[in-house]
């Protein structure tokens, strides 16, 4: 591993040093600059979320629609949430060696529980009388799932995605403990050489990226949630946006 030169700060505390680090134009360019690291960070996040979604969404749709396997899923989700991400990362690297995928799998484990819970809670949150009506109109089970349950459960479903994305984007820094890039590099490297300005600056950037990702999903939700649900202008009929994302939030941080 290359040694990272310590920056000369004028300030003596981490807060001031962090500010200086963030203001230094040298940190905003080049292969180790903040834009590149942010892009890497988002790539890891996106890859982990994509894999997690491929696993969790179909499973969640099935469980939500049929009501089967709910108990098992709650148990497995709880178990997954109890796993420490850093520990799993180390384990995967020990088992599978260095490379991109072992650390990504650790992040996938982190993203699966909120996605799974959000998906099945979303589908099963849809009023049973609505589902019953759809069935009695002559919709097939697939039509019920995709034309009735998914759109009406979209708010809770997206709540799960939001929770998963937030956790992964905030936790993806751990992949820097091994050989990967991303914004975690600033934390790990800064700690290694006692450069607390870098650590502080990196932490601020990670927090900002997490907030930005959350804002993007929140904005996207406005378009994905059907307009018949909530935010209606009929007097007193609005259901608002306060539907709790049952079990979709929270984690093992």
């Amino acid at each position, binding site marked *: 591993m290359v040694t990272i030169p310590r920056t000369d700060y004028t300030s003596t505390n981490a807060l001031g040093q962090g500010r200086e680090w963030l203001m230094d134009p040298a940190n905003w360019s080049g292969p180790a600059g903040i834009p590149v690291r942010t892009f890497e960070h988002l790539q890891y996040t996106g890859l982990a979320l994509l894999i997690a979604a491929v696993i969790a969404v179909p499973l969640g749709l099935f469980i939500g629609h049929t009501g089967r396997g709910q108990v098992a899923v709650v148990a497995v989700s709880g178990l997954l949430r109890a796993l420490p991400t850093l520990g799993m990362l180390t384990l995967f690297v020990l088992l599978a060696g260095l490379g991109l995928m072992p650390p990504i799998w650790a992040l996938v484990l982190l993203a699966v529980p909120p996605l799974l819970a959000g998906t099945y809670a979303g589908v099963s949150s849809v009023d049973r009388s609505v589902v019953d009506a759809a069935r*009695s*109109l002559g919709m097939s089970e697939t039509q019920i799932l995709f034309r009735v349950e998914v759109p009406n459960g979209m708010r809770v479903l997206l709540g799960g995605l939001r929770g998963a994305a937030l956790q992964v984007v905030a936790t993806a820094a751990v992949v820097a403990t091994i050989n990967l890039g991303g914004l975690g590099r600033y934390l790990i490297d800064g700690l290694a050489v006692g450069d607390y300005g870098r650590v502080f600056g990196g932490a601020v950037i990670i927090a900002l990226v997490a907030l930005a990702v959350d804002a993007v999903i929140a904005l996207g939700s406005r378009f994905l949630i059907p*307009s018949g649900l909530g935010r209606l202008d009929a007097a007193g009929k609005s259901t608002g946006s306060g539907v709790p994302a049952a079990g979709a939030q929270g984690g093992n941080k």
Partner: protein
Amino acid sequence: MTPPPEPAELSDSTKSPAGLAAGRPMVRFRSVTKTYGDAAPAVRDLNLDIGAGSITVFVGPSGCGKTTSLRMINRMVEPTSGTIEVDGRDISTVKAAQLRRSMGYVMQSSGLLPHRTVLDNVATVPRLNGTPRREARRRAAELLDVVGLASALGERYPAQLSGGQQQRVGVARALAADPPVLLMDEPFSAVDPVVRAELQEELLRLQKELAKTIVFVTHDIDEATILGDKVAVFATGGRLAQYAAPEEILRAPVDEFVAGFVGRDRGFRHLSFQDGTAVPLHPVQLIAADRLPDPAATVDGGWALCVDSDGAPLGWVPADRRAEITGTADLVPGGSLYPQGTSLRRALDAALSSPAGLGVAVDADGRAAGVVKAGEILALIEAARLQRAGS
């Protein structure tokens, strides 16, 4: 005066044209039993023929199997044993989804899809059947008109409608694919009594034009007698206790259970089925609303009826309080109205609910046509009874 809307009580002749002795059966239950697990059967050996083009009402207390029986017709519930035929075909041989699309279904909670507009909700079944969107929506807009909803409501979402409007949309949706059979599961029980009466009247009006085979579930015996060409009374334990015309069920309940279920008021309810044309009409003094402030417009007898410029009754003016009444706001509110020629029940109710003891009869245009007296109505009822006993 603004009397509350009357429950829809129409004589048999105004119900579906197919009438009581409807032709071939559209739906047949043959020895149908439904058992859940080890529990006592929800429906026990049901044999029932439902006539085409008529309204058949399943009525009974909770847990009597009426809803289960209804839901077996479109295979939302599968019978444990026995067969059900619709239009001569054993429904277990038809794919469930396809069978359901061939029947309209209206449920208690409107069951509208919250994420779709009213128009798209109504268009659901035609769309499932492959009708192009534009045509399905055009047809849906027509149906909103048929069920008495403004077309502007089509762009709204279900949550923006009142309960009564939602039920109307539910009916429109059930009619969208023009199915021969309509299944209605307590469709009006969640709306207030005034709206319920409107919806009942509306359903009878629609049925007169459409002549569908309607199976209607309710726990309300009043609703059953108002709507049904035939009524099936279910007893606890999934037993069909009596299946007959509503008039017969009220007049001659077959056993203790049915007698108990149709209740204490059945004598009064039965008057719904007796024609009121023979009730003598008496003249009454009328005072035009615009003459109320004029003291010269005196009340000659005990009571005078105040009417608006169209002749519609507004309220009563008692002779002893004439001086206090100077505007329509001071009138003594009237009772229910008796539309001329409807049932004895409405005539008697108008007389009993009137503060003057005089029931106001109105003609087809809503103008006061005269008054009826309770004593004379009772005499008519007694005469009719004697005539029946004698014949």
